[in-house]
């Protein structure tokens, strides 16, 4: 509130705005005095802000965005969602925060006005609620309509999501960045054969040295006229990585810098080829060298170009990136870089393992579901079309006919694959690590399948030449196009404004359910016979209030659940050696098994929590209701936050957990509820996603394979967290798993 007041006095606040704010403050004051109503308002906030969200998104969708001054929808919606979630926590900060954000980001005031209008509706609604008659009427209406509303909202969310691949919700992609323009380039790269010679030499040298042939690479790079440097790094993994068979890793990255002949070295582009013992990428290295030789002979470069060959694929890339930006976030030991080339504007990672390719697959999903700017993908797509290359997304070709049902279903399949990959939060290629440093990057993979028509290195090289020519023209970082999108195909996309309602509908349900619980907990207040004023609760001490929510009994289950989550997060890696000593398993297995053990052990928690929880003096149901109320709000906040930075993960979790969470109660068919809850627990969702993923890739898993894949995915998830800072593991173990345990507690409440 003080913030609101300062906003009023702020010099840049127009008078009208200031008045609005002060009105808001005035209306807030009486509400703030009441503890109960403040809590009530928190619940109402869920509903109101979900509504705001839908309205704001609707406004953009109806094409009113430009009129309202919304220029870059995704960023603003990002912000909008942030504010929404924040206001779940504290409604009073929401206004100030939104205003601050508008000012900080120099957003248009008109957008703020829209938001402000919605915000100022909010205290009016609160004022409405203060009137006990109206409140009672509303409460009755809400109780009656609650279940149908929840069902409708859930179905709307799911169908909205499924509808994303269909034509009204998808748009054609287009290049927004003026500086790149079209594909107006005369590709003159003819070094395909040259590249293959380099590749053969590289393979031979690699066989000779047994690791990355650093000396040969340095010599070759120097011979084509680059400034060559190398960087050595070493890293001991938290536990042995069985998939890649590595534990103590040390390697060397080699990179050569092509200095722009007529520009200052303030900006650069990166072409990176990861090389590891399993995937040599010899052809990619050859093409990189051949391209370097060709690029060296051109005079039109305005940015330096860094040709980087990393060892141990992502580990090397991470080491190089950390050293380039002079940070150390993952405990990597590496030597400092001797040569730099300014801020990296964009990067392309290349993976080629055959002399000819039938198609190029592009990977966009990066660490924690980050995506590169859509323009980079558009650029690649444009050159694919220009060079008549076959380009695939998620390994799927584009359907020829978009309008048809088959085309849309195909798009849905591709989109689901993207959602699953994005939800995993893993970097799907070296580009994924660049995204953390706000370097737009994609990975191109050469696929050599059984198709008849093959493309040689020259065709791939020409595509890369074209892309680099265009990236060279950039004047700023890529920022014009979308950062948040889903792709049903290479040529079509769904913007954030269109996919967010899906999760909005789903998050509406916990809010509604919480409200219902709140009303039920305060049943007496809404009874026709009692006429207690709103100030009544203020006078009474909270603990003795029969109608209020007793928070003390909830402390124990919440704390115990959180402690279990913490154990799940810490123990597997910390206790791996102990486990390996006492059980006949290797360290990697020990980690996974400990993980599973703790996870399953959590299921037994209700029995232990009940010992701690003392019996409550209130009605029989108030205990679990209060717990469920807290759990629902907790779930809504978490899912809201997750969906902000990784929509796919948020949606997958919401679509599974929300209905089960809404249904859970300690009465009725408890066994059914229990099965349902177990099925939607984060671990089970992961298992299910793996099956779905392989199903969509048309390579279905058997149960045994699925289980093996699940175990390795668990290990990889933990490893990704420690090696690259992936957030999925901590999110699940510290956030969603405890939340899920709360529902489990509700189910077995006595």
């Amino acid at each position: 509130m003080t913030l609101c007041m300062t906003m009023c006095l702020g010099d840049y606040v127009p008078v009208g705005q200031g008045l609005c704010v002060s009105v808001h403050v005035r209306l807030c004051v009486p509400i703030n005095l009441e503890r109960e109503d403040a809590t009530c308002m928190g619940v109402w906030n869920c509903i109101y802000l979900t509504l705001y969200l839908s309205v704001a998104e609707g406004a953009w969708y109806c094409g009113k965005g430009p009129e309202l001054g919304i220029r870059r929808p995704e960023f603003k919606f990002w912000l909008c969602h942030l504010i929404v979630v924040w206001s779940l926590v504290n409604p009073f900060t929401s206004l100030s925060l939104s205003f601050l954000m508008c000012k900080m980001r120099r957003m248009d005031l008109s957008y703020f006005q829209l938001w402000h209008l919605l915000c100022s509706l909010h205290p009016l609604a609160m004022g409405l609620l203060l009137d006990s008659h109206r409140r009672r009427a509303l409460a009755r209406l809400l109780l009656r309509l609650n279940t149908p509303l929840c069902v409708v909202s859930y179905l709307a969310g799911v169908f909205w999501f499924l509808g994303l691949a269909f034509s009204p919700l998808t748009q054609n992609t287009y290049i927004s960045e003026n500086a790149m323009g079209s594909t107006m380039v005369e590709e003159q790269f003819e070094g395909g054969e040259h590249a293959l010679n380099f590749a053969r030499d590289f393979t031979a040298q690699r066989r000779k040295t047994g690791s990355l042939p650093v000396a040969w690479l340095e010599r070759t790079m120097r011979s084509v006229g680059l400034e060559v440097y190398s960087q050595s790094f070493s890293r001991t993994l938290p536990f042995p990585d069985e998939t890649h068979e590595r534990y103590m890793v040390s390697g060397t990255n080699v990179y050569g810098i092509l200095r722009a002949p007529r520009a200052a070295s303030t900006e650069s582009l990166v072409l990176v080829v990861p090389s590891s013992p399993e995937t040599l990428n010899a052809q990619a290295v050859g093409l990189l060298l051949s391209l370097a030789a060709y690029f060296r002979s051109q005079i039109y470069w305005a940015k330096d170009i860094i040709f980087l060959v990393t060892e141990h694929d992502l580990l090397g890339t991470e080491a190089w990136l950390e050293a380039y930006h002079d940070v150390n976030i993952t405990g990597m030991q590496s030597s400092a870089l001797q040569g730099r080339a300014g801020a990296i504007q964009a990067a392309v990672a290349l993976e080629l393992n055959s002399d000819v390719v039938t198609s190029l697959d592009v990977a966009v999903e990066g660490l924690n579901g980050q995506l590169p700017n859509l323009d980079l993908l558009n650029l690649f797509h444009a050159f694919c079309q220009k060079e008549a290359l076959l380009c695939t997304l998620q390994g799927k070709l584009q359907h020829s006919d978009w309008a048809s049902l088959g085309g849309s279903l195909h798009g849905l399949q591709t989109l689901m694959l993207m959602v699953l990959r994005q939800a995993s939060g893993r970097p799907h290629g070296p580009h994924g690590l660049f995204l953390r440093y706000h370097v737009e990057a994609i990975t191109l993979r050469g696929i050599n399948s059984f198709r008849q028509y093959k493309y040689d290195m020259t065709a791939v090289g020409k595509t890369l030449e074209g892309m680099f020519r265009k990236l060279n023209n950039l004047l700023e970082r890529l920022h014009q196009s979308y950062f948040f999108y889903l792709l049903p195909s290479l040529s079509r996309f769904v913007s954030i404004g269109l996919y967010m309602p899906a999760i909005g509908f789903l998050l509406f349900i916990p809010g509604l359910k919480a409200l219902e619980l709140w009303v039920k907990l305060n049943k007496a207040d809404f009874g026709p016979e009692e006429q207690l004023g709103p100030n009544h609760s203020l006078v009474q001490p909270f603990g003795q209030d029969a109608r209020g929510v007793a928070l003390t009994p909830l402390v124990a289950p919440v704390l115990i659940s959180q402690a279990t989550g913490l154990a799940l997060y810490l123990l597997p890696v910390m206790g791996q050696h102990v486990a390996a000593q006492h059980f006949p398993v290797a360290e990697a297995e020990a980690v996974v098994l400990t993980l599973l053990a703790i996870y399953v052990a959590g299921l037994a928690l209700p029995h232990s929590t009940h010992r701690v929880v003392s019996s409550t003096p209130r009605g029989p149901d108030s205990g679990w209701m209060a717990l469920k109320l807290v759990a629902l709000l907790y779930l809504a906040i978490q899912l809201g936050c997750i969906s902000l930075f990784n929509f796919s993960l948020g949606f997958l979790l919401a679509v599974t957990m929300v209905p089960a969470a809404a249904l859970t109660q300690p009465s009725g068919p408890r066994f059914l509820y229990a099965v349902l809850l177990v099925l939607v627990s984060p671990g089970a969702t992961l298992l299910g996603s793996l099956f779905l993923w392989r199903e969509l890739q048309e390579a279905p898993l058997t149960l045994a394979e699925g289980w093996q894949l699940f175990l390795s995915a668990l290990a990889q998830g933990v490893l990704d967290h420690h090696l690259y800072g992936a957030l999925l593991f901590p999110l699940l173990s510290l956030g969603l798993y405890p939340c899920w345990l709360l529902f489990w507690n509700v189910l077995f409440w006595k």
Partner: protein
Amino acid sequence: MGRVDLAVIFYGTSTYAWGTRVQDRCVKAAEVTQDIVLGLSARTLACHLLRLGCFTTPLHALFWCSQDCLPDEVASQRLQPKDASCSLPPPGCLLELPSPMECIGHGGEQWPESDGAEEEEKEAELIGVWPASVCSEFKGRPLMAAGSPDQGHHRTILKVPPFPRPDSGYAQGGLTTGCASKSPGSLSRCLAYLTSFPSPSVWQDQAEQLFKSGHTNNWAVLVCTSRFWFNYRHVANTLSVYRSVKRLGIPDSHIVLMLADDMACNPRNPKPATVFSHKNMELNVYGDDVEVDYRSYEVTVENFLRVLTGRVPPSAPRSKRLLSDDRSNVLIYMTGHGGNGFLKFQDSEEITNVELADAFEQMWQKRRYHEMLFIIDTCQGASMYERFYSPNVMALASSQVGEDSLSHQPDLAIGVHLMDRYTFYVLEFLEEIHPASQANMNDLFQVCPKSLCVSTPGHRTDLFQRNPQNVLITDFFGSVRKVELTTETVSLKPDLSSMGYSHLKCHEDEELAEPLSYAAQLPVAQIIHQKPKPKEWHPPGGFILGLWALILMVFFKTYGIKHMKYVF
């Protein structure tokens, strides 16, 4: 220094006083007193100039007006050089103006002594209208004449050496014999001649006929407002117009070229030090003689408006000033990214159509142009001229409101579009223009039809006084002097009897000059490999219409109306 030792006042054609080494304030004085000049009080003018210190001593003023306007009395008193080696033009009167005592009314004031040595070396360059036959000598010193034929008007550049000192030169100078003596009687007679001139409007009308376009000098302000490599085409647009106006004769000193970015030296340019306007590197508009006056970050709205309105800081060099006057035809060409009612400058600011219109009005009020041609090649360009309200402005735009202006000439090697469509066709049109071309503005209006431009070019002529059909392209794009060297001898028959100067004889120049013709200055067609397009023959529209009608009739006759659905 900084004074005028000869004032030449052209009645009826241009009301300026020219002089050597004219200080700004003296020119201003002449401007201020223009009405007085028109009001025929030459004495007042002279006094005014004198008071401002524009003249050295003594006052010499050459008054001249067209033939018919002179009263007989003056014509009869025509003044002739003493040595009579040549004749002054018949309709002239060269007078000596009154002494400062008479002007100022301070009897005792003496002429200030001037630096004789410097004054002697001064050379006056007089540019003005002069009848066909000119003196080869003026007050005993040679007159150098140069010129070229055009339009049947007489236009000569006279180079007059400085006058001799008062004590030595002018007393013997025969030119002013009629009023030479300082006696009050002769002075009053001169003044009597002056005051008996007919009304100035008559002269104005006649001057209109004499000078069809009414301008004496040309200026061009060429502005590219866009930065960044992908806006290469805007720089090429501006440079191509620069090339054309320069080729047609506007010197660099009269062109203010503003380029917001340096494409030639951009590191992305695969052909450094060039800016091409045609595909396949056919026409490089960035030659080795391009003088950019305002470059990169100097191109701002403020600087642009300062150039137009003349409010440049005193330190600004001449090349950065638009030193036009009310006899200047000014061409203003702008290109960049625009929208409805604005043109973006430098990606950071914009000029609105209202600001531009107000700037033009200021220019008009400050007599900074005689006529103005405004051309803009930008999206929704027509919105930029719709607010103009100052007279004598003709405006062209590449597109109507709501339309985009489109680019042309995509070049794969350079990797950008080289030009915009509108300017591309304007350039093609201008390449065919030479200084003697009679192409008029109507031709320019039709230069880029919608079929070529995709956008609809617009033009506005309601503020312009003349019919665009009578306005030559070279009135704005060139600096073509209305000069004609006659090949005929004009026989002057002064009425000697009334003047009483028997010794006057005109030596008439009887040499016949060779008729001059212009050589093609640039083999344009060969440079851009474009021959004039042969007109394609099209069958007349009516025939085609008839043919279609026949086809349709046969169709309906054969299949009937019910098969219509198979057609559509």
